[in-house]
């Protein structure tokens, strides 16, 4: 652990933010085109975030601020753990469980901050978000367990590098197609894309956890959302699409995967939260189990 590690870490956070925010802007345009609109400028997302930072803000007590800082801090730290095209700020810390649990720090911080605002909508939103998490994470975890069992490693970068060098069919998505489909579905849940976005439903519960945020806290929440998207898409990319040999390939793959989710969610309606749970526990969980049993007992996908 030297100073350089931390500088790299800082750069990773910054790079992830810039990359994902641009991509979000572009995807807003993509969605607009899907709806036969012209859409905003590609850098609109930056403007939105910086505008939020430029406004005045309120606070509902120390936990409201502390939670927001903890949330963004936790997420930023998680970004540092994510291996991108074999690069890592802190080598050896990319265990998948570490990543998914450090991610939870950010979520907990956000939930805490939201509930700390004293707004019932926020609490409802948090309750939905946590339920949603319980729904999508279980099928995903089953797939992850299968992967770890298969490759005997829990390191994300190793899992990514195993898939590289044998062409597109070396990807886990093709070797374990059921698991791949499950985790892409889970990605929708992770990103809170439609049809799994009931926890931020603006018209029903006034955007849920975000209800009381304005000004800099809102800006932080937007930043958080960008970074979280980066983590989640990167995770799926590394686990199932072979990561990237070089940064460019990584970015291209990333953009394609993210745009794909965006396009699909653009034409989706919204599940109620209990419908989402039922869905995840019926289809993806079943597929994940089948995949797991195939790998463990029949030795598929080696």
């Amino acid at each position, binding site marked *: 652990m030297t100073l350089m590690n931390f500088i790299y870490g800082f750069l990773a956070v910054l790079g992830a933010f810039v990359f994902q925010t641009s991509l979000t802007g572009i995807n807003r345009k993509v969605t*607009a085109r899907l709806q036969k609109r012209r859409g*905003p400028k590609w850098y609109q997302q930056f403007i939105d975030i910086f505008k939020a930072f430029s406004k005045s803000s309120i606070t509902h007590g120390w936990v409201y601020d502390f939670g927001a800082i903890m949330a963004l801090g936790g997420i930023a730290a998680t970004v540092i753990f994510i291996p991108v095209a074999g690069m890592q700020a802190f080598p050896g810390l990319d265990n998948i469980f570490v990543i998914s649990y450090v991610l939870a720090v950010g979520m907990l911080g956000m939930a805490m901050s939201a509930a700390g605002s004293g707004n019932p909508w926020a609490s409802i939103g948090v309750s939905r978000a946590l339920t949603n998490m319980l729904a999508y994470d279980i099928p995903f975890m089953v797939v992850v367990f299968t992967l770890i069992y298969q490759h005997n490693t829990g390191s994300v970068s190793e899992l990514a590098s195993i898939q590289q060098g044998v062409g597109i069919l070396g990807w886990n998505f093709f070797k374990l197609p059921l698991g791949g489909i499950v985790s892409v579905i889970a990605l929708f849940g992770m990103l809170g894309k439609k049809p799994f976005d009931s926890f931020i439903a603006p018209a029903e519960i006034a*955007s849920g956890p975000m209800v009381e945020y304005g000004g800099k806290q809102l800006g932080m929440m937007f930043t958080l959302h960008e970074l979280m998207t980066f983590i989640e898409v990167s995770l799926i990319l590394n686990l199932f699409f072979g990561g990237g040999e070089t940064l460019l390939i990584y970015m291209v793959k990333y953009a394609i995967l993210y745009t794909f989710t965006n396009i699909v969610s653009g034409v989706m309606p919204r599940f109620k939260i209990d419908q989402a749970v039922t869905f995840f526990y019926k289809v993806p969980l079943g597929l994940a189990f089948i995949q797991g049993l195939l790998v463990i007992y029949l030795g598929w996908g080696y």
Partner: protein
Amino acid sequence: MHEVQKNDRSLWEVVGDYFRANSIWMKWYCTGCGAIEMPPTMTSRFDMEQLGMGPMATPRQADVLLITGYLSTKTLRRVIYSYEQMQDPKYVVGFGSCTLNGGIYYDSYATINQLDKYLPVDLYIAGCMPRPEAIMNSFGELIEMIKKGEAKGWKHYKENHEWYKANQMDSLGEVIIHDEFHE
């Protein structure tokens, strides 16, 4: 009434105004018939998002408060409450003649006649109702105003707080109602 001085913005504010002008999030208070003009404005025909505008769920997140139609006294109380929950800088746009001069409700015992007595309106859009074209144009105008630092109603409201409050008290008696339904 105290008038706000023009062009006394710092560099920070100029940059901020650029961002604010290009990203206007609306709290769109559906007070009257004008609300129906908003959906076409937002969707593919006129596509408000190309200006960086979009609807927001709560006043905390929003920059601009759209008053789309007549305001009864009951509604006005809630509008004022919402406005005060918004974060600075914030802008108010009045839709249609009802907010201007009472419109067809000029003699109603329950409807106010002139919004800018109670809230600092940055921009009125005339018409009964204004069509989406008019709305789009006036949003362009609002963007220009923000860019130039002319949309400073929120400062005005702050500096003339007593005046606004007095007007509100005269017409409404009490903004934050305490009665059996709210205790």
